[in-house]
């Protein structure tokens, strides 16, 4: 019963796939859109085993750096949904079709490098874990990014998506060697 305090998080459990995926979830933009890129990756556990029961959600600005949200400076003026969600397949793989985001303001008025906010939900995760996707072909912007600057240098590579034929690859390692950097939100 509510006492006005925060409701605790619980795991999505193994059967999230009946409730959370949408048919168009992986398509932040429709197939064939100009500038569309796939972001593909595999979600793995501490043994390196793929997770067939995870969900990856993404949130981002449009290519001009605007969010489809009333609190965006300038208001809700982009048609770009900005949100993607994809359940992992039997091999732990996910794929989101989107456009690369533009730059958005960061702490202290410093512009952030292009990035995508990510939530990972899964059986065995009692709360979502949060990370960010940055882009390897934005080296100069990444070097000046105020959030990346707060990440230990030897772990930053886990946040950088690498170019592939049809977009970028961003693997997520929940635990162990090359563990992805997760953020306290």
């Amino acid at each position, binding site marked *: 019963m509510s006492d006005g305090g925060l409701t605790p*998080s619980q795991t999505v459990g193994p059967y999230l796939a009946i409730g959370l995926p949408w048919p168009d979830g992986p398509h932040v933009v429709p197939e064939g859109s100009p500038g569309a890129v796939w972001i593909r990756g595999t979600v793995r556990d501490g043994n390196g085993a793929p997770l067939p029961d995870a969900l990856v959600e993404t949130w981002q600005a449009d290519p001009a750096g605007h969010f489809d949200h009333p609190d965006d400076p300038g208001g809700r003026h982009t048609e770009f949904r900005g949100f993607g969600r994809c359940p992992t397949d039997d091999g732990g793989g996910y794929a989101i079709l989107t456009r690369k985001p533009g730059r958005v303001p960061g702490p202290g008025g410093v512009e952030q490098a292009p990035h995508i906010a990510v939530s990972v939900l899964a059986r065995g995760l009692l709360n979502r874990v*949060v990370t960010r996707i940055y882009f390897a072909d934005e080296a100069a912007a990444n070097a000046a990014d105020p959030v990346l600057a707060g990440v230990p240098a030897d772990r930053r590579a886990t946040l950088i998506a690498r170019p592939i034929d049809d977009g970028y690859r961003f693997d997520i390692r929940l635990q162990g060697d090359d563990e992805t950097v997760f953020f306290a939100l």
Partner: protein
Amino acid sequence: MTPAVYRRDDGTVHPPLLSPGYRSTILRAPSQAPVLLPHTLTELTGPVLGEGRVTAADADLTVRAGGGEAQGQRIVVHGRVRDENGRPVPNSLVEVWQANAAGRYLHKWDRHDAPLDPNFTGVGRCLTDASGHYRFVTIKPGAYPWGNHANAWRPAHIHFSLFGRAFTQRLVTQMYFPDDPLFGYDPIVNSVRDERARQRMVAAFDLAATVDEWALGFRFDIVLRGTEATPMETRP
């Protein structure tokens, strides 16, 4: 207008990711401490979803599939979504999924030896109204065994997914029913360490929401993260 930053998790409410009593956390909980993320525009905004994606019928789980009525005890589950500052969260997507009355999910991996119900998919969604209120009609889900340890049974529950109005507010939780005898044995419920916080996941029987001759009512209010007090509010 730049929105205020959200309150940081103080570690007393949400479960620790590594909760070894729930075995699946052992290889999935990150081992490194998380890096503190400033709340930038990316985190202070979030998906505004639902318009055009949700119909009124999506809030009634008892009539969706098969053309017939779902088996089980019909219930009304409703409540308000607010933030820690007590402000309602309006026009926000609420997604639910659950087992059927026999404790079986309509999912290819659910091997529990209990019957499927051709008239129950166990999936619903709705939008909160202007005051943050939501309402579903469904059936009471059954408890089910889950293999975590010998004779492990999940207390009856409904999975809830909420977006709030910012990336910081995203919440997935489970709603439980009052006085379930399984509470004391369930490592997922008890991954929440604080008794008062655990109680917030338990719906209350609600006579006022009970529909005479038709369905029992339960109230489940949900509280998402609030914002830090503004300087104005902290002034003595």
